[in-house]
Every structure is written in structure tokens, then in C-alpha cells.
């Protein structure tokens, strides 16, 4: 046996996204955000997207391009503090925003990836984040039913990959990437380095290739991946 080869072009992978799809996008700030896949999605033009991402990046970076192009109708996120455009669009009613506690967003995505329906948690009990959610008693205490999240497509940024789609992340660029890479019907990974089979150590793989459908190698990284020099 040999493992299947999943290498494909960035555009070829993105082409399968449809209007109205739910798309998970890795990253916490710049680290781990698949900037090249996002640009390909802008070029592709799919609209009415539901985007699941921890944050909306900063103006001129990452998810902000999809906000500018008007492709997002709904954003499931935890914090938009660094992108005033996202907040303005939310306040103007041009996008719908669903805020989750950060670890609960992570847990809902993981539940989707783990094939369970929901997790029960006391996080947010007694706050407005509990509003409208199903509550179940567990050992006599109220727990919120936080339902699993899955996506049609997940866009992942990895430091290194092999041709089967095994992925390795570095430093804090890991964040939501391995979770989202489990939780979508079609998982597309961009990798800074694409290695032949066996190029990654089996014990050091963060996302097993079984979860990944397409992998593409980035050429020279754009400036968007660089250190942000804020004023």
C-alpha cells in the first residue's frame, strides 16, 4: 500500500466553494491565517458565505478582504476588536455576527470534527451568551447545549505538509487550524512547504492527512504573512 496523493492547485481546490457555503478559516490574528486561500476565494467570488473564524483580522488583511468584497453574510467569531470595518458592517446590519466565547467556539468546532452532536457546558450561564440556547440539567445543574459546528469547506494554513495531507503547524499559528481541519466536508490546506510522503515525522504530525482533502504548496509568502508593524 501507498498513501494517496492529494496535491492540487490553490484555484482548483477553491473552485468547489459554492454561494451560501459555510467556510471555516484558521488563524488567530495573522499567525495561521491562510492568506493565499482567502485571496483565491475573493478571486473565485462565491457569495452569501457564512465564515467561521476566531477574529476578522485587521483592515487590509485576511478575512477583511472578504468583508470588503461583500462576500460574507454571516460571521461566527469570538472577537472583532482589531477590525473596525467588521464592527461597522455589523452595526450597519450588513453582516450578521454571532459571538461565541473563544474556547466554546473551539469546542463546538472540535465537536463537529469529532462527530458528536453537542457539548454541555456551564460557560456563559447567567450571561447574555446563554440567551436563546437550549439548557439541560446535568447532575442538578443547568448546562448550555453548545451544538457542534461543521462547515462545507475549511481553509487551513500549515507550516509543512506531505502529499497525503498530513499537516504540521508552528508556534501560535496552530490555534484553530487543527480543529477546523477535522470539521469540514472538504478541507483545503495551504502549506509553506510541501514534502514527499515520509517527510514529516509520524509522531510530530498535528493533523492526520485522513482529515484533509486537498493540499497545495505556497510559493514565496506575501507580505500579509509578515510581522505586523503597528503604530
Amino acid at each position: 500500500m501507498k498513501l494517496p496523493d492529494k496535491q492540487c492547485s490553490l484555484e482548483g481546490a477553491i473552485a468547489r466553494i459554492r454561494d451560501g457555503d459555510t467556510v471555516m478559516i484558521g488563524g488567530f490574528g495573522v499567525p495561521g491565517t491562510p492568506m493565499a486561500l482567502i485571496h483565491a476565494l475573493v478571486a473565485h467570488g462565491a457569495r452569501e458565505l457564512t465564515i467561521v473564524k476566531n477574529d476578522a483580522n485587521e483592515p487590509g488583511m485576511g478575512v477583511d478582504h472578504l468583508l470588503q468584497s461583500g462576500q460574507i453574510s454571516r460571521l461566527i467569531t469570538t472577537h472583532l476588536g482589531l477590525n473596525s470595518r467588521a464592527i461597522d458592517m455589523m452595526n450597519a446590519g450588513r453582516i450578521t455576527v454571532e459571538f461565541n466565547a473563544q474556547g466554546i467556539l473551539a469546542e463546538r468546532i472540535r465537536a463537529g470534527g469529532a462527530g458528536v452532536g453537542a457539548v454541555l457546558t456551564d460557560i456563559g450561564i447567567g450571561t447574555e451568551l446563554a440567551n436563546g440556547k437550549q439548557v439541560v440539567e446535568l447532575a442538578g445543574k443547568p448546562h448550555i447545549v453548545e451544538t457542534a459546528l461543521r462547515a462545507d469547506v475549511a481553509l487551513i494554513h500549515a507550516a509543512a505538509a506531505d502529499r497525503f495531507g498530513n499537516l504540521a503547524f508552528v508556534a501560535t499559528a496552530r490555534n484553530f487550524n487543527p480543529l477546523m481541519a477535522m470539521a469540514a466536508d472538504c478541507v483545503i490546506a495551504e502549506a509553506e512547504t510541501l514534502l514527499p510522503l515520509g517527510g514529516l515525522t509520524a509522531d510530530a504530525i498535528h493533523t492526520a492527512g485522513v482529515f484533509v482533502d486537498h493540499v497545495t504548496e505556497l510559493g514565496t509568502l506575501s507580505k500579509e504573512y509578515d510581522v505586523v508593524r503597528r503604530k
Partner: protein
Amino acid sequence: MLSDANDRMLARAAREIAPGMVVNLGIGLPTKVINHLPADLPVCLHTENGLTGIGPTLPPERADRNLIDAGGAYVSTVPGSAFFDSATSFAMVRSGRLDLTMLGAFEVASNGDLANWKIPGRFSPGVGGGIELAQKARRVVVLTTHTDRKGNPKLKRQCTLPLTARGCVARVFTDLAVIDISDRGFVLVETRDGVTAAEVADATGAPLVLPNATPPTF
């Protein structure tokens, strides 16, 4: 079961595995299918104790003490193998990343119910990973002798033993035949070379829908 019939069943089951699939081969007969797979077939074998990309089984003197499959056999890796924990392993199973699982059976019912883990009062070592494989792999096929050691049918109208999962089995490979499970119950698809459709029907504990023409052989 004749050794030749056994080999033919395994070889036929191996042809069920298509290029690109992710496959879990259950403990017992299914594990032996690995010996019938073409060396150049692009396929990913999964074992639930934490490995994708299973390589050949190794004898003790060449084994890695830390590298076993779910049945406890010492196995090896292939280029691109990955290790992961037990939660991640079953995340793969439950979220639909297994294209196919091949399982053993005590009983298979004509509605696809499977019983393969417990014989009350006699055998109840626990269900292991069987329920999740049976319930969540995209396609579940069974490898089993057509009858038990006493000659009683293992393919039945209804399971009498505790179920592993309901309505999960799509196809059964036996030493006598390949049988699909459909809305009409058991459907004969192929027979082993030298076995007649009537012999298969006789050994089956539920009605068997026969094809109009003589079925292909394996």
C-alpha cells in the same frame, strides 16, 4: 472453512477496496484482507488505537514494542503514516472519514442489523471500537463464514444477540457468496466458484433474492 474458500473470500473482499479509500479492517478475518491488496494501490489503512498508514505485520524479533494494531499484532508504518490519540482516532470514525470498514460478525440480519460483540452468558469481553465503526463508517461490509461451527446460518431474519448497530451492513462476504443487503433483504450477488445459488440459499437463515441469470463467481 476450507483454506481455499477462505483465501478466495479474502481476495474477493480485497477488491472492494477502491483507490483513495480510508479503510479500517476489523480484528480477525478482515485484518487478513491486507495480504490480498496490490502493493501499488493508493489506500490508507486505519487502526483505531492510533495509526493511519498501516504497513506490513512484523514477527516479534523485528517488532517495535510501541507499534501495534487494535488486535495487538505488531505492525509497521509506510511513508506518510501518522500517529494520534484515541479521541482523534474515533473522531475520524464518527465524522465520516472512513470510507469503508470490514467487520466480523456473529449474526447479520436481512435488514442490515449486526451483532458481533456479545453472547450473553458465554462471551462478553466488551464492545471495543465496534459500535462506532459499524454505526459511522460510510460503508460497512462483513466478512464471516456463512455458517457457524455447528452449521447454523449466521445470516438471519433477525439478530438474536445484542446488537452492535442497527441497519449498518451493506454487504456480506462469506466463504460461499457475496450478498448485498437491500430493501428486499438479502440479495445474492456472487457465488464462490463451484457453489450453486441453491446451496447459498440453503445455508442462509432468511429469504435470499436470487439474480435472474447465473451470478458471477469469485
